[in-house]
């Protein structure tokens, strides 16, 4: 179903439909994450991908155009590049351990360490939160700053700040 949705996203020319389909795509991948027992990630994907980004995309196409332009050149070369990359990636997965295998490197390296230390150090039942907020506190701080920077960027570019200042300036001139 993910594949079908992805193909229809590429095929559909009306951007409204594309935005809706990408929301569907996010929701489906959230389901996939639930099936893989990654509930936190699924939650984020559902909220961000299916919720917020759909609204923001709609806002964007309200400001720009509603239909895709016809591609000006043939899509053969990009298709070949994508197929080769995909083939290489699939080839790369061949010698990966089976999903959920107990002797996979993921399960042997830092995983057991965190599972052993979290009840002792932090004692919260949700290990994801413990790792994100405490052991990897720097990373999360960085992410927050990134979100903040993105917000500042959008505000400065599309700016409610600038317009207010301009209005203030004209108001001052009136006085």
């Amino acid at each position, binding site marked *: 179903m993910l594949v079908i949705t992805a193909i229809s996203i590429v095929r559909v020319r009306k951007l*409204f439909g594309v935005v809706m389909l990408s929301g569907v795509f996010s929701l489906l991948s959230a389901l996939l994450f639930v099936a893989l027992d990654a*509930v*936190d990630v*699924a*939650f*984020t994907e559902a*909220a*961000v991908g299916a*919720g*917020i980004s759909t*609204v*923001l995309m709609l*806002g*964007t196409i*309200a*400001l720009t155009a*509603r239909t895709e332009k016809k591609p000006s050149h043939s899509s053969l070369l990009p298709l070949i590049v994508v197929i080769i990359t995909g083939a290489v990636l699939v080839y790369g997965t061949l010698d990966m351990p089976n999903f959920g295998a107990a002797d996979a490197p993921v399960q042997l390296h830092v995983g057991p360490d965190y599972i052993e230390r979290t009840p002792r*150090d*932090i*004692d*919260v*039942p*949700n290990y*994801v*939160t*413990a790792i*994100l*907020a*405490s052991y990897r*506190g*720097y990373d*999360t*701080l960085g*992410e*927050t*700053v990134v*979100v*903040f920077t*993105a*917000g*500042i960027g*959008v*505000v400065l*570019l*599309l*700016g*409610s*700040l600038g317009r*207010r200042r301009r209005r203030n300036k004209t108001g001052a001139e009136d006085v």
Partner: protein
Amino acid sequence: MEHHLILRVITKILIAPIILFAFYVQFHGDFSPGGGFQAGIIMAVAFILYGLVFGLRQCKSVLPDWLVHRIMALGVLLYAGTGVAGLIAGGNFLDYSVLAQNPITGQHNGILIIELGVGVTVAAVMISIFYAFAGRPPRISDEDW
């Protein structure tokens, strides 16, 4: 969208549970899936829904631009401030164990505060991005979609 009666009524019913759920996800993040990021998004969705249905002007009268921008910075400061508080209390940056007598309580408090910082920032950023997009003039009428 002032003429869509059903949307208006349903939105009014929905907003309170959405905000409540956001708080649940925020403060129950240690015990169940979720955390600051998701809670921030859900909180922002409540305001964006209000803005979509009742119009941007109404939404901005509830939560004006300047307040959103201040809140955005406040979240990051809250997070970084918790790190600095750890420094002052004699630990490393972002080491919550020193924030209370008992290291585990300290960790709990630290996680709660920084998650709040994350949530507040994410919510404010999303709302301000929505304001920035929705506040620009060339709007398409409902029929044009």
